[in-house]
């Protein structure tokens, strides 16, 4: 395989993954309306390039921590849509056996070592995982995903500080979607470029086009190489946008008119699709076929997930204590 086709294959795979996440999230919306998923969900339509570009820069054995808005990170890491749907439906076949729910799509066997519903908590946990690797003299690194709003909580600053003094092999990834719940980032945060928050902790801080999966992949790859070489952590800010409201109950009326439409002009899937078409790698027809195929897979996955039983109290007892 030539380098060009290898690169092309990889970009097509990214395209497929982003489409899978998009269709998964749209389906979640639908299942919610149907009552099959309850409580709350935090969807990530519009942000797909971040998990797809970043997680494809990880090697086997590397780990990641995610947030409650973590469906994209879990799927990009290789969780099957059926397993993820089952978790959202509270079924025992879910990744977390149905006790976790939408905010806890976790698969330790693939290095997805946590998905936290507490803003900011995943960052120090990832520093710890990275320090575990370092103390055991293993070459792995840890990635941690969190939002713009999370850069205002203490654990973010504590995590960056510890990671820097200890040169922990960790990559901090801010998914800056311009809002923390209903608050625009500038109403809670005194700067535009959150990557600047790396400066006081003496580590590289990089602003990245979070709509461009290739840019994301390349920035994360650089940071991963740096961490693996023992040079310590990096902070990467992915500029992106969430198409939906914060959570199920939020119609996102607080957004200025035209903002959503402007961001949709640079939709991460269409952006890559246009490039792949222009380069003759994946025609518009092929793209439409991929979308239809993935839609059918998503529908089937949801149907299968809904067949699984709910967990019993008895089977969940062993999840409380290991000993």
């Amino acid at each position, binding site marked *: 395989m030539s380098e060009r086709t290898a690169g092309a294959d990889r970009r097509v795979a990214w395209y497929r993954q982003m489409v899978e996440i998009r269709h998964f999230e749209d389906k979640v919306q639908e299942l919610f309306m149907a009552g099959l998923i309850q409580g709350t969900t935090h969807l990530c339509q519009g942000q797909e390039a971040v998990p797809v570009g970043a997680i494809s820069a990880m090697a086997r054995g590397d780990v990641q921590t995610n947030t409650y808005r973590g469906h994209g990170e879990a799927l990009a890491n290789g969780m099957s849509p059926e397993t993820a749907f089952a978790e959202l439906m509270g079924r025992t076949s879910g990744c977390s056996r149905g*006790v976790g729910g939408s905010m806890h799509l976790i698969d*330790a066997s693939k290095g997805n070592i946590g998905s936290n519903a507490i803003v900011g*908590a995943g960052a*120090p*946990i990832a520093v710890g995982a990275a320090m575990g690797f370092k*103390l055991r003299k293993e070459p792995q690194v*840890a990635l941690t995903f969190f939002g713009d709003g999370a850069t205002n909580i203490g654990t973010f600053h504590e995590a960056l500080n510890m990671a820097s003094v200890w040169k922990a092999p960790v990559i901090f990834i801010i998914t800056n979607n311009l809002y923390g719940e209903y608050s625009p980032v500038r109403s809670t945060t005194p700067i535009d470029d959150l990557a600047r928050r790396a400066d006081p902790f003496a580590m590289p801080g990089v602003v990245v086009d979070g709509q461009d999966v290739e840019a994301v992949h390349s920035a994360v790859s650089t940071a991963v190489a740096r961490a693996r070489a023992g040079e310590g952590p990096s902070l990467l800010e992915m500029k992106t946008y969430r198409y939906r409201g914060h959570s199920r109950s939020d119609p996102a009326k607080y957004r200025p008119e035209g903002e959503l439409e402007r961001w949709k002009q640079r939709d991460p899937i269409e952006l890559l699709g246009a490039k792949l078409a222009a380069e003759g790698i994946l025609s518009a027809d092929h793209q439409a076929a991929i979308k239809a195929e993935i839609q059918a897979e998503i529908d089937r996955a949801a149907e299968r997930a809904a067949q699984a039983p709910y967990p019993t109290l008895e089977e*969940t007892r*062993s999840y409380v*204590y290991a000993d």
Partner: protein
Amino acid sequence: MSTQTEAAPAMGATVEMTYREAVNAALDDAMAEDPSVILMGEDVDADGGVFKTNAGLPQKYGRERVMATPICENGFTNVALGMSLTGIRPVVEFMFADFMPTAGDAIVNQLPKYRYMSGGQFSVPVTLRVVSGAGGRFGTQHSATGESWFMAQPGMRVAVAGTPAAAYELLRAAIRNNDPVLVHEHKALYARKGPVTRGAIAEIGKAAILREGTDVTILASLMMVERAMAAADELAGHGVSAEVIDLRWVRPLDMETIGASVAKTGRLVIAEEQWHEGGWGATVISNLTRNGQAWKSVPRAVALYYDTLIPYSPPLEDEMIPSAERIVTAARKSVGQIPA
């Protein structure tokens, strides 16, 4: 102190040592036995640590395994959790129990829930060593035992060390355990001496009957254990036979041992260095009542702590902490020797 780590007595040998040396020996033995055990916390590596429990350990195990952290309790406790996911067994020192609330998220939402919310994918072998208790003239923000703050939480275990032997055995048990455990040490006890058996590991959730008796059960934790023992001596002079139980575990509570004792005596004095409401004493009484315990005395159990905060002023601080005399009075009231 430094001799402790240089020439450790053979495993199985019972030797006299201080409570401080017992903590040191437990850390030393655990670290020698398992290279994945590390100690971390503020200033743990310098000068033996703030309470001198860690003397010799940085020299013996290096500063990677005796790791000083920045001042960020929530951050470094979550770091410990993360380490436990990649093969390390961290022991985290909390310089004062009073600082635990700043790590409330790690202690309430992360450590005890991390395994559960993943459907059992992880075990989280993190030990928190918590320096607790009053009597040191440290004032109101450095004197809490905090021993019941986190007892109501499945996923966590909470131990309280009242003697050098308990300090050693509980810490060893906590470090070996594959779940998060809080181990409270009492800062006023560090200089106390007692027999310690190297290599002994406490049984999880097992209280210790330190003295047998038939008239009244005195249930005590931390510094109250030695005061309960002194009270029992004095009570014997009054013809009252007291059974003294060292609680050892706040979670899980050893209701079997406690229940059997109170079934025998029918009377209970709770000796706790904390407020009664929301504490283990209140929970013990609730559990006994739920289990149908028949009582021989009114009041059925006595709270000894005053409903106010801990002062600096030395005489007042001493008055605040339940004394052996107060325990004696409570026990004599329960058997009707003096009016209730």
